């Protein structure tokens, strides 16, 4: 039996607006799609104590993370009537204001895409082993924890 290839969902550094725009444009020929839904996670300049977060350095247990992304994708495809789904997460340093997570789903109807995106983002935050080092201007840091 052929072994399924697990997709690498990581991109080094920030996810650019050009990449996001081109991803959308690539779907214009799929004319059975009636709705796209996108979630963009952005690095927030939180104030922690008296310091402001300048960037987050993401690291991951990449093999497990890609396997988890794959399981989440499969589950979403089984739960929702989706036509396309793409997930990208940053690895490495992403500055405040830049995009670190891009989730993109397409379906015939908007409700399906809306529900799927909510499911996907919650599952990613809960199940994918990604770690974030929040870096301050003085180069000190703390470790981010998802709420």
């Amino acid at each position, binding site marked *: 039996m052929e072994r399924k290839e697990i997709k690498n969902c990581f991109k080094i550094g920030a996810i650019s607006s050009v990449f996001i725009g081109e991803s959308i444009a690539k779907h214009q020929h799929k004319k059975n799609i009636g709705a796209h839904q996108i979630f963009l996670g952005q690095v927030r300049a939180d104030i922690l104590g008296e310091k402001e977060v300048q960037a987050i350095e993401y690291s*991951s247990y990449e093999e497990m993370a890609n396997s988890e992304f794959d399981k989440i994708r499969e589950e979403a495809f089984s739960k929702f009537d989706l036509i396309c789904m793409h997930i990208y997460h940053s690895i490495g340093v992403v500055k405040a204001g830049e995009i670190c997570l891009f989730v993109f789903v397409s379906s015939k109807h908007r409700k399906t895409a809306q529900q799927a995106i909510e499911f996907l983002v919650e599952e990613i935050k809960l199940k*994918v*082993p990604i*770690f974030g080092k929040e870096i301050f201007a003085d180069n000190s840091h703390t470790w981010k924890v*998802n709420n």
Partner: protein
Amino acid sequence: MKCKVIYFGLIAEKLAFDSEEIVIETDIFDKSNLELSFKKRHIQLTEMTFKTAVDGVLTNKIDTENQSQIKEIAILPPFAGG
């Protein structure tokens, strides 16, 4: 049996290393409770929150019937993706 252990994020930082090899057939290593075993092994982890994974699957124990096939145990601090 020797087994590779990999540490991530805050935990690797606290320990000042990100991997080691351990022997899991010892009296102090409880295969039915990995979290407790690693808290005993490294005092720096006592107050920390973490999950454990065996060969990329979240679990707090080792399946003793298949333990000879284990490649690695991962110690995972709280997730922060997104």
